[in-house]
């Protein structure tokens, strides 16, 4: 059995977990605070190794408990029970930690759909586990299907107009070279750094949220 001194935390794994101790020890979590805010808004790499260690420990705890339960049933040894209870508590605890870890990461990943859009930046994707990437794709699909179904014609884009719109067109300023951009009416404009444009709000809101354009308000 290995001691798990990992930091299951959304921002997780502050430092690599120290090598497992040879001595048997029960599940232990040493959570670390990510510096600055309570919750980091960018995910750390998935703590695969930590989770695997937890699973290994849980398996060991479970097997030991199975043996003890059999012994206790055979000889009706009441003195076995405190140990069984302790291991069981450790099992439950580890289960809770891992589930909470997975759950909270998924929450963050769902939020990313709204903030980054349907395509994640490569380096963020790199920090996700394979299953998490699959989950993100499914989430995006679900959201898209739902948004299509809201109105009979054309659907409703929920990621638009997060703030109440005041006008159809807005003035924007380009913060970086983004190349050509085709507007709905077929025209093509060149989004060059520091150039200013007057665009349909619905078309450029995403680009503003991505930090390509800046909304100028007077």
């Amino acid at each position: 059995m290995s001691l798990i001194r990992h930091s299951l935390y959304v921002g997780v794994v502050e430092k690599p977990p120290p090598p497992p101790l040879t001595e048997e020890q029960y599940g232990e979590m040493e959570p670390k605070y990510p510096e600055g805010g309570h919750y980091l808004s960018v995910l750390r790499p998935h703590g695969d190794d930590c989770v695997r260690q937890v699973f290994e420990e849980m398996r060991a705890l479970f097997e030991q408990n199975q043996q003890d339960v059999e012994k206790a049933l055979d000889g009706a040894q009441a003195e076995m029970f405190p140990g069984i209870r302790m291991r069981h508590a450790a099992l439950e605890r580890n289960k809770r930690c891992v589930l909470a870890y997975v759950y909270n990461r998924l929450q963050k990943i769902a939020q990313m759909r709204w903030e980054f859009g349907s395509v994640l930046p490569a380096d963020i994707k790199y920090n996700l586990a394979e299953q998490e990437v699959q989950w993100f794709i499914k989430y995006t699909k679900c959201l898209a299907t739902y948004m299509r179904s809201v109105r009979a014609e054309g659907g409703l884009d929920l990621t638009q107009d997060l703030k109440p719109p005041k006008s159809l067109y807005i003035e924007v300023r380009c913060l970086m070279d983004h190349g050509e951009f085709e507007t709905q009416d077929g025209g093509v404009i060149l989004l060059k750094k520091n150039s200013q444009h007057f665009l349909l709000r619905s078309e450029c809101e995403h680009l503003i949220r991505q930090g390509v354009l800046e909304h100028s308000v007077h």
Partner: protein
Amino acid sequence: MSSSHDSRGSQNFEATGDYFSLDDILATQERIPCTFQTEVLNLGYIDPSLDSSNIPKGTKLELPFWLAKALCSRRKQCVTIDLPKHYKEVYRDVFNADANVVDLHKLGPYFYRFGSHLLHFEHPESPDIAKSLLKVFQARFRDIMDASQNAYDQDMSKMTEKLDEMEKVIFFHGQKGLKDLQMWETREGEKIKISEMVINHRKRKRTHLDES
């Protein structure tokens, strides 16, 4: 097993059972001094200073809350618990004298949450602890509220570093309200902003580039 399990199906984990709440997991990790009332076989490795492979009766150990709770059910008590010192009478007297000067972050950082978890044990002093927790919060709330509603664009780290995690949440909610109001007054609210995650992502990239 416990109430935390039942709440898994409910929507708002923050307010109710907290099975998935990281704060609650951290809070239930705090240690409590325990005395074993029965011998526990084959678990001597929990305390490296024990020579035997069993935990003998009468051993005193500091166990994390979740373990102590599991071993301390009403049906059969394997351990008896002692109160952590921050919840004992000496400290309660200190809080009574002036709760505002105490550094709850150092004593906690989940002072209230852990404190209310402690009440599960039905320790004889539990009612006093409950009363004391409420009093401490009442005494400190005024200052927190005051600071969060009036400090605009100031460095508040001196104050916030003494706050318990729950107080911090309250403080930052207050600050956010103040900022939102300010934004609304200056008509900043209608401006479409770059999303928070994108900003943080960029900052990270930049520090990454600086390092290499």
